[in-house]
């Protein structure tokens, strides 16, 4: 087989591919609406989550953590110790010093509208998708960990060791930073994040913050909710009620 491609062949083949896509596109217009994965995401949506700490039990939070571990395959690192361990989602206890009231919350990447991790990233690896999901592009990540320092929620972790047998949808590797992806691979398929579906009650709601018909939008209109460290004006995608 001749391994070289001349320009003419390349153009011919590319045109053929384009034509193929166009014909295919006409045939599958219906599916395109259901599964919009062929089109780039837009800022007409903003994915968000509402955590109701009054309803959310401690075992719910443990379930969320293990659902996340199972979905993304973190938590089995052998050589990482203490602070080095991955923690995409954590159980955090908050205690009111006056009344001694304790609330438990699940804390993960808050998917800020103005994420500090994106501001500080020197390589543009830390990025926010148009629909508000904050991700690390590990192809570009050089492992400097500025973003971990910048994050007010301590939501990111660094992979300290060689890994094998990663999940197909979640590449992870030594020398890169990682955090909650809001299960972007599931969201793009129209599913719910793993932690949200692990909770049986309505304690955690996921949806499009902008969509007036969505459950999360309607609930946020009704109930008092807050953003953690709202004073930083980051406009987080993850909201909490009951704290």
């Amino acid at each position, binding site marked *: *087989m*001749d*391994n*070289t*491609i001349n320009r003419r*062949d*390349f153009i011919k*083949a590319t045109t*053929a*591919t384009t034509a193929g896509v166009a014909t295919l596109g006409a045939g599958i217009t219906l599916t395109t609406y259901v599964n919009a*994965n*062929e*089109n*780039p*995401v837009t800022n007409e949506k903003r994915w968000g989550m509402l955590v109701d700490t009054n309803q959310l039990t401690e075992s719910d939070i443990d379930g969320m953590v293990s659902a996340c571990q199972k979905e993304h395959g973190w938590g089995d690192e052998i050589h990482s110790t203490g602070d080095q361990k991955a923690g995409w989602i954590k159980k955090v206890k908050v205690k009111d010093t006056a009344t001694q009231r304790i609330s438990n919350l699940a804390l993960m990447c808050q998917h800020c509208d103005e994420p500090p991790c994106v501001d500080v990233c020197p390589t543009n690896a830390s*990025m926010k*998708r*148009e*629909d508000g999901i904050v*991700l690390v*592009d*590990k*192809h570009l990540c050089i492992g400097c960990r500025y973003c971990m320092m910048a994050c007010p929620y301590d939501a990111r972790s660094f992979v300290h060791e*060689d*890994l*094998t*047998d*990663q*999940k*197909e*949808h979640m*590449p*992870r*590797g*030594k020398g*890169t930073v990682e955090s909650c992806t809001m299960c*972007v*691979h599931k969201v*793009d*398929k129209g599913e719910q994040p793993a932690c949200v579906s692990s909770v049986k009650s309505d304690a955690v709601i996921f949806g499009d913050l902008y969509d007036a018909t969505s459950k999360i939008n309607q609930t946020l209109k009704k109930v008092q909710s807050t953003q953690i460290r709202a004073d930083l004006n980051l406009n987080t995608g993850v909201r909490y009620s009951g704290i």
Partner: protein
Amino acid sequence: MNRWMVLLLSLMVTSVFAHGHSEHTLGTEADSIKSSDKTYHQSISMIRKMHPEFLNHKRDKTLRQGVRTEEYSLSGCVTCHASKKDQSNDYHAIDASEQFCSDCHQKVAVTVDCFSCHRTTPAEGVK
């Protein structure tokens, strides 16, 4: 003397061709596509030459724009081109020596860095 030269040269040529034995490491799924006389890639020479560009372009679209089509997805490469082990139903890692990726990459001494993060076998449950 000339006879010896011819012999030496032909040995060298054979060894070069012997090295390009990509046939048996094509991958289990890809093998079955090939043996059923179907084609997956429009032009194999194009894929051979351009796959780094295709993959780089696709990864940015997937990660940054959420475009998750099958075309040029790395997991798609792995699903077809990973080979099953002879004894068990498990797969060889695609970047292992003598397997699909390393077959060429070793020869031309180009490091593949895809698989320090990406899964080297088809997704769990694919048998």
